[in-house]
């Protein structure tokens, strides 16, 4: 329904998609501006940073397309419109995800894939069967990981109705962080996104393997391939959190 309603205004859809493409592209323009002054950042060249950027942006874009409406949940809890969703014979999670499903978010995916394509053409990599297979795997696992964060953030909003911004710090903040080489950040911060909120599995660890760069934490090599398993565990945990959140829901006024 939301797809049809957005496509009904073709010019507006085109403009907002282009706008979305430009908005998400600003981050990459910042990186380009940085590289107009330097040749290496955190041990990575521009095509290598573009590889990180492209994989992160594509994964995040996919998750945002499917689950990006989660931050609206707090408002539904506050104004009581969540009750309407509870009455329908469709899982609430699916309804919240489909709420105002914004096809214009394709902009971020298109832009991410564009940067990824550009970097693949320039990056100096010795491709093996393993690393070729790793690329689509990391994009999908990354999308699943970000989706899990979106759902967990949604569950959190059952408890703290107006704290949607905390979710932004993990989703958008995490996505910004993953655009830069891990060596840029303090060791503890890297540990945090590896073991606490395991965003490092979105692109850092598999990308280090593909690009043949050393891992600043010195983790065992098989972890580079662990993204799908980590994503699966995170999705399960997020699912549990969501159910706990939904069960604790008390409608406003009661």
């Amino acid at each position, binding site marked *: 329904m939301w797809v049809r309603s957005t496509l009904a205004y073709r010019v*507006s859809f085109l*403009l*907002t998609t282009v*706008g*979305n493409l*430009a*908005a998400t592209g*600003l*981050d990459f*323009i*910042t990186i380009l*501006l*940085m590289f*107009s*002054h*330097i040749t*290496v*950042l*955190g041990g990575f060249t521009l095509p290598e940073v573009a590889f990180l950027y492209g994989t992160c942006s594509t994964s995040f874009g996919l998750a945002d397309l499917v689950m990006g409406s989660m931050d609206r949940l707090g408002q539904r809890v506050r104004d009581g419109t969540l009750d309407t969703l509870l009455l329908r014979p469709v899982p609430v999670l699916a309804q919240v995800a489909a709420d105002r499903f914004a096809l214009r978010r394709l902009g971020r995916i298109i832009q991410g894939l564009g940067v990824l394509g550009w970097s693949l053409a320039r990056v100096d990599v010795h491709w093996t069967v393993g690393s070729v297979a790793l690329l689509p795997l990391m994009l999908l696992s990354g999308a699943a990981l970000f989706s899990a964060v979106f759902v967990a953030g949604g569950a959190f909003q059952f408890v*703290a*109705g*107006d*704290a*949607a*911004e*905390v979710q*932004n*710090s993990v989703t958008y*903040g995490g996505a*910004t*962080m993953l655009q*830069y080489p891990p*060596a*840029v*950040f*303090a060791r503890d*911060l890297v540990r945090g996104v590896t073991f606490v909120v395991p965003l490092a599995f979105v692109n850092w660890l598999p990308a280090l393997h593909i690009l043949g760069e050393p891992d600043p934490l010195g983790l065992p090599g098989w972890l580079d391939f662990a993204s799908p398993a980590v994503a699966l565990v995170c999705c399960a945990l997020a699912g549990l959190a969501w159910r706990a959140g939904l069960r604790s829901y008390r409608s406003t006024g009661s």
Partner: protein
Amino acid sequence: MGGFYAAVVVRGFRRYATYRTATAAGVFTNTVFGLIISYSYIALWDQRPHLGGYSEAQALSYVWISQALLMTMALMGGGGEAELVERIRSGDIAVDLYRPADLQTWWLAADLGRAAFHLLGRGVVPLTAGALLFDLALPAAPLTWLLFLASVALGAVVSFAVRFLLALSAFWLLDGTGVSQMAMLSGLFFSGMLLPLTVFPGFLGEVARALPWAAMLQVPADILLGRHRGSGAALALAFQAGWAVLLLAAGRALQAVATRRVVVQGG
């Protein structure tokens, strides 16, 4: 009449002060972003010390000043303009025009109240957090801080004036989505939120530093960092005041044209 608009300022402040959890959540997010951007700047300034004329401590201070001013200047949206657009779209604007208050001054007063709240609510804590986490180059002289506050106030007026102009376009377009998106894009890029405008290369940098968005972040930050002193500071404030006057006048002219277009249904 001045007392009336002062009351509107106070109400604007109080209105945003009611959202305490949201403010706390916002402070947390500003701090996380400040942390992430700080590290990318450290990596950049390690490679190029004194890039854009900033020392590393000054560059880091710039990051936390920008996080502190993000909401005050509504650089990513979040000002009152969405509401104004909605009132224009729905026709409620007719009620506003009927009031014995001037439309632009009313919205300016409400927006200054909002800006003042965000400066305190979402500015002070992230800047303090940044000062605790990193070695910042913040001034000790009270005069510099006073100049900074004056510059922030002027920047807030310029920010309002730009958003008011964009909101009035709803009289013709009826849909604010595209315009607010453009406002966000230009706000982020040309204010120096992503990277200081002094780091922008060549002609792009010169243009960016002359545009009104520079008055919202680059100028106040440079004043606090002590890059504009004495007559330089006066010149920087004059640059902001110039844009404020020009854009407010443009808003006034557009308001006059736009209100002649209003057709009240059934009235």
